């Protein structure tokens, strides 16, 4: 290494040396003239005149040194090109292999890097944590105001702790039409805690955050540009948000993002009210974040928070849930990526496997080619080519191959990235940030260039031997062993990829064919989220829902129709603790039962959604006038509460509130917490005409012969007449379900593509080895044929040879696949990670590909003509 550096340094200083030599000549000539009585000036002029231009001389000296080098480099390049033209198949496959390896790994890494490895856009991002209670009510940690206020007062682990309300929509009235925006309410120290500051205007102050203070807002950079034309005049301007005057005090930075990765357009102070009663503040939800003190580790912070958590949980968490709630303190990045982490690692692993397979393939091809060319190299050495020259020439060849592959690889990578970005489901990837990652590109280039150089040069580095000139010993045994191992490794990698793909595809099938418990075909849903402000009283809400039902129900030819407050199968709906349920005449139910979901629906709901009533009856229109709303249980909940007993007619108190209602029916189970999870227990209550349920969110569902667009127009018109400021979201049920299948479909299709590429590479590698072996043994085969061996037997031998090495690869790959299966358990659905079927399918595909790859060489071997083979070479 040191010697190499010295060499480089010497090279660099050579120009200097040449100039110095000429200077020294001029100086001596000057001295010579001075010795003959010239003045200094005369001496200098004479010396110059005699020498001519020193620059031109230096230039000529350089040409002496450089020209032969350039000429031989050009010669090498031309020679390499000629070689490539003679072996177009080899050249194409090698280039493509490099290109695919580079392209795929770069594109996938570029997409995954911002998720897994990138720094968060906050200074000292590793100090930031998300913390709170974690329980069956939410998939992320949450907090309640009462507990948070105590934590904040007493904690010792953090420099700062801050909070925000869960995001919601708000309507900005700017001009004539209201715009629905993403809004967050945050504590005054929110931005400071994250180390962020507004790009324009000012941050919130403690004063803004007092209850009852005049409303102020920060707006996002995007909103500032789009709605206010990026004008500075927006600072201090009063705008209307949800019918309230709000003064804009600042603009968020262009790169600011919410810690839980939500979109934000308007941010307002949350104004927690400490004077409210504890009970009230204990049911008021928050997300809490904090910044660790210098030198405090995550574990230490967790340990310090534990007593505080114990103390507040005793007061603020309902007794029934207490044993199911724990404290979570985790890094912000962990919180951000936990849902997609596994899928991302899976993709990254798949693509790295592909890169390794590609490198192995390049190595294999080059070694094969080199072995074939040992005679040529030996010949050239014999007629006087220096070893350095031979090394340089193979180097040139490898470099040119690598370069062509790199150029194509960049193209493939770029195209693949475009495709990934357009295919990727919302939420899996940070699409905005996906761009070609220079580091990965460099890494992939280096990896494939290194393998090309290393294996391309191997034959030139070894001393050319005279024996190599005879056809008999074209390659040593070590070399072919190495190549077989390479092939076996490729087979193993492909098998792992194939098994992974097969597992994912099978879970996807299972997922697609999984009964949802309802029939989404021809069902269209319109979701509305009216503003609380517009319907402040229970009476106003009831009137609104009745009118909405009347209007939406009168659309002609729309089919069956119902109102509900929420829709399956997406999870995330709020539920109630199972342990709150009382059954008349029964002992109390088991504790720790998790959550029970509920929906408020109109009588048409079951028919419209295609949910069967398995016992008792559905709701009736005439029951909606008065009394306690009747109850329908899901089959799962009925089984849990009553076992084999008949639930119909039983009285149940759902919330330990003294309101007893009657079970009139049992409905079939419905997927209600995502597609993967088993259905949560659930009950349905009838929406009464006389009293609306507490929440304002409402969805209208239709089982309709109309197409979505036509029905959508009618729905929008009716809603507009009722409340012009109320936006409507319309989607078919199939679309809503399809969205949940997007991510598994995306991951499965990507891994399948990689597996296909890996398989192709392995087949190409095997083909290369076999062709080479057959070519090498042509003479031997010829002799055997001349002595009466049957062509079929020869072909079979080649296939058997292929089978041996494929078998070894398969065995290694099977072990890898089992390990892989365990790692990707979380991505699978309804398929065991050790699913033998997937492994067998993968091995079968691989074996078929191997047999196919061996076919041509085997055929060639069987067709060897003894007469030609014996004359050959």
């Amino acid at each position: 290494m040191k010697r190499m550096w010295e060499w480089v340094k010497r090279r660099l200083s050579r120009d200097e040396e040449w100039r110095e030599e000429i200077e020294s000549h001029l100086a001596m000539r000057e001295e010579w003239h001075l010795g003959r009585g010239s003045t200094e000036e005369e001496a200098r002029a004479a010396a110059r005149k005699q020498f001519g231009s020193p620059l031109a001389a230096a230039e000529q000296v350089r040409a002496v040194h450089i020209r032969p080098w350039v000429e031989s480099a050009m010669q090498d390049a031309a020679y390499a090109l000629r070689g490539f033209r003679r072996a177009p198949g080899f050249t194409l496959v090698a280039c493509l292999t490099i290109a695919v390896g580079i392209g795929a790994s770069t594109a996938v890494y570029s997409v995954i890097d911002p998720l897994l490895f990138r720094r968060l856009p906050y200074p000292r991002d590793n100090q930031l944590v998300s913390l709170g209670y974690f329980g069956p009510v939410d998939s992320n940690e949450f907090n309640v105001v009462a507990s948070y206020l105590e934590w904040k007062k007493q904690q010792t682990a953090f420099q700062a702790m801050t909070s925000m309300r869960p995001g919601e929509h708000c309507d900005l009235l700017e001009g004539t039409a209201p715009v629905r925006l993403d809004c967050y309410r945050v504590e005054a120290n929110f931005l400071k805690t994250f180390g962020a500051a507004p790009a324009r205007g000012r941050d919130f102050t403690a004063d803004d955050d007092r209850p009852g203070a005049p409303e102020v807002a920060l707006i996002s950079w995007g909103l500032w540009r789009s709605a206010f034309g990026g004008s500075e005049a927006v600072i201090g301007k009063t705008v209307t948000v949800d019918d309230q005057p709000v003064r804009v005090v600042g603009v968020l930075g262009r790169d600011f993002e919410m810690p839980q990765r939500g979109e934000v357009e308007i941010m307002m102070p949350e104004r927690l009210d400490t004077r409210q009663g504890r009970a009230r503040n204990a049911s008021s939800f928050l997300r809490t974040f904090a910044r660790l003190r210098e030198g405090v580790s995550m574990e230490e912070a967790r340990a310090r928070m534990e007593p505080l958590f114990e103390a507040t949980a005793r007061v603020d968490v309902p007794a029934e849930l207490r044993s199911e709630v724990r404290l979570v303190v985790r890094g912000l990045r962990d919180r951000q990526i936990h849902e997609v982490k596994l899928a991302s690692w899976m993709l990254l692993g798949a693509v790295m496997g592909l890169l390794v397979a590609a490198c192995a393939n390049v190595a294999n091809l080059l070694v094969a080619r080199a072995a074939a060319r040992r005679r040529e190299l030996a010949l050239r050495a014999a007629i006087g080519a220096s070893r350095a020259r031979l090394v340089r020439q193979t180097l040139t060849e490898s470099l040119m191959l690598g370069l062509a592959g790199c150029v194509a690889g960049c193209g493939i990578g770029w195209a693949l990235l475009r495709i990934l970005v357009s295919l990727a489901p919302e939420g899996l990837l940070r699409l905005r940030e996906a761009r070609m990652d220079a580091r990965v590109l460099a890494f992939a280039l280096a990896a494939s260039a290194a393998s090309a150089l290393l294996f391309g040069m191997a034959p030139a580095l070894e001393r050319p031997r005279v024996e190599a000139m005879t056809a008999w010993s074209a390659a040593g045994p070590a070399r072919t062993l190495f190549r077989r191992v390479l092939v076996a490794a490729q087979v193993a990698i492909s098998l792992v990829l194939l098994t992974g793909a097969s597992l994912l595809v099978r879970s996807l099938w299972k997922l697609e064919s999984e009964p949802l418990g309802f029939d989404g075909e021809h069902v269209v849903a319109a979701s509305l989220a009216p503003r609380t402000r517009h319907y402040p009283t229970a009476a106003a809400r009831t009137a609104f829902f009745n009118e909405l039902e009347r209007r939406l129900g009168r659309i002609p030819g729309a089919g069956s129709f119902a109102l509900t407050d929420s829709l399956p199968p997406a999870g995330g709906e709020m539920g109630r603790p199972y342990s709150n349920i009382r059954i008349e005449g029964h002992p109390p139910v088991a504790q720790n039962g998790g959550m029970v979901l509920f929906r408020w629906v109109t009588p048409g709901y079951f028919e419209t959604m295609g949910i069967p009533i398995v016992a008792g009856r559905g709701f009736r229109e005439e029951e909606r006038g008065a009394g306690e709303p009747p109850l329908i249980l899901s089959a799962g909940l009925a089984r849990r509460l009553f076992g084999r007993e008949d639930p119909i007619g039983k009285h149940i108190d759902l919330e330990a509130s003294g309101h007893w209602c009657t079970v009139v029916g049992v409905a079939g189970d419905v997927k209600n917490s995502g597609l993967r999870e088993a259905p949560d227990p659930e009950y349905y209550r009838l929406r009464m005409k006389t009293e609306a349920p507490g929440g304002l969110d409402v969805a209208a569902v239709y089982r309709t012969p109309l197409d979505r667009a036509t029905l959508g127009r009618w729905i929008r018109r009716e809603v507009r007449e009722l409340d012009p400021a109320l936006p409507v979201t319309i989607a078919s049920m199939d679309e809503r379900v399809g969205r949940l299948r997007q991510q598994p479909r995306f991951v499965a299709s990507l891994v399948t593509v990689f597996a296909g590429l890996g398989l192709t590479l392995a087949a190409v590698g095997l083909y290369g080895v076999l062709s080479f072996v057959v070519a090498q043994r042509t003479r031997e085969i010829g002799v055997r044929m001349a002595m009466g061996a049957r062509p079929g037997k020869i072909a079979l031998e080649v296939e058997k040879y292929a089978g041996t090495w494929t078998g070894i690869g398969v065995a290694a790959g099977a072990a890898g696949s089992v390990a892989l299966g365990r790692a990707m358990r979380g991505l699978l659905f309804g398929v065991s990670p050790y699913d033998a079927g997937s492994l067998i399918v993968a091995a079968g595909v691989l074996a078929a590909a191997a047999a196919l790859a061996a076919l041509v060489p085997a055929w060639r071997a069987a067709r060897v003509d003894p007469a030609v083979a014996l004359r050959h070479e």
Partner: protein
Amino acid sequence: MKRGDRLQGSLDLLVLKTLQKGANHGFGITVHVQEVSGGLLRVEEGSLYPALHRMEREKLIAGAWRTTENGRRARFYKLTAAGGRRLAEEEANWASVALGVERMLRPA
């Protein structure tokens, strides 16, 4: 340049012959050639260095930095074994060329 090319064959011969007497630097070579030839021959200084480097690449001579008697740094060239053989060839070659030209000019 042109002239240098034409003289190249003889330039190599002059340089090699000079170095046969001992290692010398470029300037020394020009002085030596001029003195020994009694001023009849003059090495063109601009072409001398490319020629020296070319001959060094061909391993006819070997160069190294040394200090002159006047305490100046200069690159000294000395004849290699291959250079000695080449000199013998060139001398013989030159002799026959000179003889041929002589006969042409003064036919017997």
